[in-house]
């Protein structure tokens, strides 16, 4: 079966005074129906640009899709005009934002905002839409939805607001939900509740989800597939089991090790990856990660590695696997690698 969303060689960037900078370069992803793809990576790695590009909202943020294709359910999104996109956005795909409080318009009641989303894509009378809005609020687990529908965003807590944002996004039963760090602004307990809610709704509605996060814990919990991004490129991709079991790319390994562990010595220093993400206009030649990579080879400085299969359900863009790519060799012993460093 064809995946719901297929992104191929997507390159997008921003025009600056010194020419165009590419925020993402040749990103290829795909999401099957009903599946969750987690996009992980540190700040500035191009996760949000990818999501905005899929929604075709990048143009409004001053960016541009330069190359590549985005197919949603057989529909080429890069060829749609903005006028056509208006019918697709919110209907076939919807988006949840990071800050629930600021994603809601302060002068409308939350019920009105949900009803607006319904009325944009469905022929419904105002009264019908309002009843549907209350149902949606009930669906996302807001107690006393009739009263809440009449309240303004500032009268609700952050978690409630995020539930409202989810209700707005799901108003037209989209096939694809893009969630851009949906729980970053919330505290941990609310985070857990919302993730449960998202998972439950995803199962009920059978939608696909693109979840953007920098939290490996969330990724492990929510994802079917994980794609790791670094400096605008996907460096590793695979099923959640394979990726957590045997991370292949040195960057993924570094990310995994930076997650604080419940076990082990309490006072030990947190692991960090040296250096930081390169600026968009000063991206190193060859593999973009090589200046920070503990296992960099001479080849890494000159040639950019392509995606190579490193396991049955796992691909990584790293020269370490060049000779072994065909044989699905076991991942190298990373503990030794770290010790040497």
């Amino acid at each position: 079966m064809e995946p719901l969303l297929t992104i191929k060689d997507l390159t997008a960037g921003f025009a600056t005074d010194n020419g165009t900078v590419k925020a993402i370069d040749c990103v290829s992803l795909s999401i099957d129906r009903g599946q969750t793809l987690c996009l992980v990576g540190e700040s500035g790695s191009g996760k949000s640009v990818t999501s905005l590009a899929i929604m075709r909202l990048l143009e409004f943020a001053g960016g541009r899709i330069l190359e590549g294709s985005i197919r949603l359910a057989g529909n080429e999104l890069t060829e749609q005009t903005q006028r056509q996109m208006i019918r697709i956005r919110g209907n076939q795909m919807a988006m949840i934002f990071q800050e629930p409080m600021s994603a809601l318009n302060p002068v409308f009641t939350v019920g009105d905002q949900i009803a607006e989303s319904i009325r944009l894509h469905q022929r419904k009378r105002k009264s019908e839409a309002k009843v549907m809005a209350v149902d949606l609020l009930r669906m996302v687990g807001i107690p006393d939805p009739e009263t809440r529908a009449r309240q303004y965003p500032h009268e609700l807590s952050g978690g409630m607001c995020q539930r409202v944002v989810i209700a707005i996004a799901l108003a037209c039963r989209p096939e694809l939900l893009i969630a851009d760090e949906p729980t970053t602004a919330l505290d941990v307990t609310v985070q857990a509740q919302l993730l449960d809610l998202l998972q439950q709704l995803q199962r009920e509605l059978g939608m696909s989800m693109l979840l953007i996060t920098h939290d490996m814990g969330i990724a492990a919990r929510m994802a079917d597939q994980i794609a790791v991004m670094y400096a605008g490129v996907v460096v590793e991709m695979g099923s959640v089991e394979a990726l957590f079991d045997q991370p292949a790319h040195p960057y993924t390994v570094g990310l995994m090790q930076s997650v604080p562990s419940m076990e082990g010595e309490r006072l030990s220093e947190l692991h960090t990856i040296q250096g930081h993400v390169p600026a968009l206009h000063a991206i190193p030649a060859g593999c973009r990660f090589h200046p920070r990579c503990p296992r960099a080879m001479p080849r890494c400085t000159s040639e950019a590695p392509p995606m190579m299969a490193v396991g049955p359900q796992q691909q990584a863009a790293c020269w370490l696997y060049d000779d072994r790519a065909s044989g699905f060799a076991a991942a190298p012993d990373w503990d030794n690698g770290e010790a040497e460093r």
Partner: protein
Amino acid sequence: MNEAITQEQLAAAAEPSWGGGSEGAAVSKSQSSVLPTSKLPQRPPGLWRTGMSKFRRNPYAVAGLIVLLLFIGLTALAPYIAPYDPARIDLLLADAPPGTGNHLLGTDELGRDIWSRLLYSGRVSLSVGFAVAFVSVLIGTLVGSISGYFGGWIDVILMRFVDVMNAVPLLFLNILILAIFGSKFSYMILVLAFTSWMGVARLVRGTFLQLREMQYVEAARAIGVSNTGIIVRHLLRNATVPIIVTATLMVGGAILSESALSYLGLGIQAPATSWGLMLSNAQEFMLIDPLQALYPGLCILMVVLAVNFVGDGIRDALDPRKQRVVERRGWRAWSRFLRSKT
């Protein structure tokens, strides 16, 4: 102020009834004890409600509103109140002092009743004031919102046009246009509106520049709201408060401009009359009968002051950042302060 009141009522009337009539707002007090009411506390008062209470606690604004309503009421009822036809000439009773016969404020050099003329003039001046404010806010909001929302070259073109308009000496432009096309009442309103929308445009543009970066705009786009929808439904609603305030303040400015034009003889033409025209007539007789100039002048002064107080009051009342009305010192506080110094 009229606009603010009607807006408030509209907002109240448009209050949606969620899930039918069983909701708190629609239920009368006696019923609410029977029906299972929500456990949640009563909704905190909305922007308009708090605004009204803050407005009421501002004595300047309330006084301004009363004066303004008084003027509107009197001029609206002019045909019933005015004892004489404002254009009736009675040369036998010219320049009569106040209180002569039935002439409350006396008569002018042609024996026309000043009180009646003031009432009828007020109709013209006030309607010019409100009409000009309305039209120029309309133009200004349109230009400003397009300019601020789209930005880029659209913004550059529109704002340079505003700059050009601002650089033209507007009084002379008004004079020129009215001299060419004749000074009909409707022309005057349009001419005044076309030369006073720039401030509104700049204000709305500035507000939109700030508002369009809000995340709810992006969120609205993400559910498929069109540009027009975002401007009209989302951004304009958020910019209502500054727009209402400038609209109010513009009324005063428009009345003054009308007076200036009429004073120069380019505005209202006799036998119709306006406060500015009355002032202009009275200047010949300043030394003989200064009261003739005082009455219309006082009317203009009071209306413009009242409108400005009301405008300030609305701004303070609807600005959520300004939570408390500044306590004005009463006479007692002042005397205590003065005594403490000595």
